[in-house]
Each structure stands twice: as C-alpha cells, then as structure tokens.
C-alpha cells in the first residue's frame, strides 16, 4: 500500500512544476562539468554512472530520492524531457544531453567524447 500511495501522489492534481524548480535543475546542472540526475534505486541510472566512470569522468550525481526537493525536481525533469521517467538525465557543460538513449547514441556516433573534452571532464 505504501508504494501505491507514493505513485498516486504524483498523479493527483498538485502544483505544476514552477519555473523555480526548472531554474533549480538548470542551476545545479551548470555548477559542474558533468551532472547526472539519478535515483539510488534506479538501475538504468546505475548504468549511466558506470558508463561515465568507465570513461574516467568524475560526474556530479544528484540522487533525487535522497533530496528533500525530490518531487519538484522530478516534475521539472519530466517536463524538460517530455518523457514519463525523470531519471537518469545528463547535463554536460551546463547543457542538456538527455536520457540514456541520447547518451548512448552520442557515444556511438562519436559526439560524446568531444563534448566531454570541451567541458573539461576528460583530457587526452
């Protein structure tokens, strides 16, 4: 029942994501070269963290479920991505890269590494 009410809460008409919560996300995203919004229980988030650490990138991770501002951040991310799952979301150099799809695609097509270099997240 506990889990049930948790998920219901997000469907009830509550405050829409304010520009404040979006600003919060963007501000946090701009503070470091690589920023990952994640949840400690999310396995896809674990994958994305592993991908970056495997490339030698020291990413800043915000675990939403360990943050008091979870709900508003979640709503802002869902709004930003236009998808049903808020995490994982990656920002590089303050700019939105996207969710797992986009990160994978950009790694395969060779655009991820230059982006990381430009943001100073990796050298060589």
């Amino acid at each position, binding site marked *: *029942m*506990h*889990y*049930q009410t948790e998920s219901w809460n997000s469907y009830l008409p509550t405050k829409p994501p304010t520009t404040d919560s979006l600003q919060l996300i963007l501000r946090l995203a701009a503070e470091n070269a690589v920023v990952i919004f994640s949840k400690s*229980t*999310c*396995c*896809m988030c*674990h*994958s*994305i963290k*592993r*991908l970056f650490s*495997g*490339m030698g990138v020291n990413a800043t991770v915000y675990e939403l479920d360990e943050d008091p501002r979870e709900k508003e951040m979640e709503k802002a991310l869902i709004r930003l991505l236009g998808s049903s799952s808020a995490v994982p979301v990656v920002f590089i150099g303050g700019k939105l890269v996207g969710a*797992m*799809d986009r990160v*994978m*695609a950009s*790694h*395969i*097509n*060779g655009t991820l590494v230059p982006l990381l270099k430009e943001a100073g997240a990796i050298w060589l």
Partner: protein
Amino acid sequence: MNSTSTQFVPSRRMGLCEPMPQVGMWNDYKENNCMHTSQPVILEVDSRFDNQSEDTSHGTVGPSNKYDQEENKPVDKVMRRLAQNREAARKCRLRKKAYVQQLENSKLRLMQLEQELERARHQGSYIGGGLDTGQLGYSGTTNPGIATFEMEYGHWVEEQNKKIADLRNALYSDIGDVELGIFVDGGMRHYFDLFAMKATAARADVFYLMSGTWKTSAEHFLSWIGGFRPSELLKVLMPHLEPLTEQRRLELSNLRQSCQQAEDALSQGLEKLHQILSETVADGQLGEGNYLPQISAAMEKLEAMVRFVGQADHLRQETLLQISRNLTTRQTARGLLALGEYFQRLRALSSLWASRPRGSA
C-alpha cells in the same frame, strides 16, 4: 397429403438461409460444438418437415388440395409462419457468425502450432528423445503478443534468407552503387524491423524475449541481452570490410571500444537489477506466508527489464547506423552480407547440433 406438402415446403424455408449442408453444420455447432455433418442434417431438416406438415394438417378446414391449403390459411397463421422464418433466419445468421469465428480461432491455433513445431525442430531436444513440444513450448503460446511475435519472427528469418541471397547476387554482379544502395537500405531496415518487433514483444513478455527460446540455441548462447553483442559484431565484420584506410580502421576501432563501454555499462546496470530484485523478494520475514508487499514491490523492479532490452536493441541499431556512415555502399553491402551469413551459419550449427547422433540413452 403429407407427401405433397413436404414437397412444397423446403424451397420456401431454404430461401432464407444458405443451402442445406451448411445449415446443418451451424445447427450442430450450436448444439454440440463440433462439426460433424451428414446425419444430423437430415434429422434437422426432417423434423422441420414434420413441423410443417403438422401445421398444415391442423388448422385447415378447406379442401385437401395443396394449392387451396396455401391460399386459405388464416392470416394469423401466415404471420406466425413469417415470424418463425425471421427468427430462424436470425438464428441461422448467428450460428454462421459463430462458426466463422471458430474457424478463425482454429486457423490461428494452427499457425501457432506450426510455429512451435518449427521452433522445436530448430532447437532440437534438450531433454533427449523426441520433439516433445509440451516441454519445449514456452508459455508464449498462451500469450497472443508472443504468439504474434513467434509467427512474425518466422517470417522475418525467411525474408532475411531471401535478402541475403539477393545481396550476394547484387554484390557479385555488375550493378552500380545506387542500385546496390537499395539492397543495402533494405537490409538495414530489415534489422530495424526486427528491433521494432522485439520492442512490442518485450511489452507483452520481456522474460520470454530474454530467455531466447525464439532463437536457435547457438544464437542464444552467443547473445547478450536478447541479441547480438555490437562489439562482437564489429570483430566479425572487420576482415570483410577490407581494404580500409588507416583513418577508417581507426574510426571502426574507436567504435568498437565505445560499444564495449556501452555494453559494460548496461551489463552492470542489469546486474544491479538482479541484486535489487533478489533483495526485494527476500525482504522481510521469509516463512510467514504473507508476501504480497514483497511481490508487489518486485513487480515495479521487473518493469526495468523492458528498458534494458530496449536500450540493448537501441545500441545495436545505433551501431549498425554508425558502421554504415563510415563506409562506402559497397563496403556496407559486404558487411551486411557477412553479418547475414554469420547468423545463417549459427542457425545451421544449431540444427546440426540438434540432429547429432546421441550416445546410448
């Protein structure tokens, strides 16, 4: 008297429905759900004849001549007969509809069985002995989404074999790059079609997709998260793409490394899911007999499986696209041919393995 009226009735009754034999079948379907025919047909029709003759012999007071009988029937009897006819026609139509529905279901069931048999032939028997489809058949046959997938995948493989043959002919003929490009595009899109089919099947039953029972045994043994491993694919293809410039070779080598990193990341995420699932199910007091909360929590975790299978296929698609971006049409064509034949060989290996002579049982 009876004989003359029975002669007259059939043509009027029959005009409302289809010819006799089929009417009998629908009647049978309604009565005992089977499709035996001849005997019951006669009985049914005979009983109608009997009813009719009963009607005519009951209420009439006029002359015994058949024409006079028809014309002098009271109006309400005519109305009654018309109503009965309408009712019979309506029932007739309903029975026909039910019969057709049953035919459609049987047809679907037949296709499913054929697919199972085909698959069982590919897989051989792990248990030893005959093709016991009861043991090999996954629960997929009770899931319409999976039954559809199995059927579509069977067609996909047939189509794939044709495409490979066409591509081979095209490569070894004189055709120009533009025409060759058409075969290449077709080949690439065919793989993308498979990924789309798998996405739909994953929503129906992701475990089925992961179990690999829809693939041949050798293919499944070499697979990673429900399909080929992109980095391994590149290793298989590289020799067939020669001659390559140093630039291209470097690009492909980098691509292979990127694939490996992406694969490792997804594999580790899946391992984490494995661990979390185990913890979720084992949570709380084992042995109390009340485990609904744990099972409900685990359901949520299982949804993540669908995402992983999706990401793996997405990685495969992106890799194929990236390979084609770096190469000429002719090189891509050779690559696709090599890839196609690689899987054909794996399928052939599976068949051969399945049909190898066993030792003493």
